[in-house]
């Protein structure tokens, strides 16, 4: 899994690509979110447009990131779900838990 982040109008956009699975992307994602929070960046938009595979550990990591950010008074939203990730979040009923966006500019504005 490859991950990078950029700042747009006070929102940290985390671009993820590849797999979020046990032993592959889960730890990377966790470390990235923790690092952003440690810098006081509490508006986080996870861009999953290039994430082509996620397993139960990856789903757990998304939930963990969501609750961790929320518990620190921030917000974490999801952007550009692939069909596979979308379907998994539907099956697990997490689609309605997360704030899911499909337009980056609108997503950034929604934080303010």
């Amino acid at each position, binding site marked *: 899994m490859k991950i990078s982040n950029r700042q747009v109008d006070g929102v940290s956009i985390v671009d993820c690509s590849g797999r979020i*699975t*046990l*032993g592959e992307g889960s730890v990377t994602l966790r470390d990235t979110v923790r690092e952003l929070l440690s810098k006081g960046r509490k508006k986080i938009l996870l861009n999953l447009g290039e994430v082509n595979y996620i*397993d*139960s*550990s990856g*789903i*757990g*990591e998304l*939930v*963990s990131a*969501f*609750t961790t950010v929320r518990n620190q008074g921030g917000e974490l939203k999801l952007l550009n779900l692939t069909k*596979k990730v979308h379907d*998994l979040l539907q*099956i*697990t*009923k*997490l689609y309605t*838990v997360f704030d899911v966006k499909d337009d980056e500019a609108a997503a950034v504005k929604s934080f303010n």
Partner: protein
Amino acid sequence: MRFPARGNEDGWIRFGVGKLIHKIFAMTKQRVSYTLDSTLETVDNAEQTATRIAAEAGFEEDEVMQISMAVREAAINAVLHGNAYDPGKKVRLDFESTARDLVITIADQGKGLDVSKIPDPLAPENILKTSGRGIFLIRSFMDEVHIHPSHEGTEIKLIKHVHGPTVGGKEASP
């Protein structure tokens, strides 16, 4: 759970520990068995092998993905929760492909899964838990799931019907 050594009989073959070598049997009924270490590499190998065998069995792309994800989740359970990464414990992975079904069996040598203690991940009190979705996903993706825990380990059998679920399954074929 003891994994008996098997020879090249009745379509069975036993590979060395940790090796994933595939063999295609020129038979109507194809069967292959692997004995694997309790490592993360096993989880990835199990998923990749399931993807290949499901594709060879003629399943469509979406079904191949479902099968490979179910096998990955079962392998995670076996390696992490069953054998707890114990290098002295192995995971057995069997594939049996017939004209009707693909049957995949994953067995570990752990303490045995207590099925009654598997939480419902869709329950409101569990929806934000960070774990506990593996068995649920397996059941969502496969037509039949049979879990056989014992004091020698847990064996989980995953079945995908070649032409969609049969009567009595989650959905009836048209």
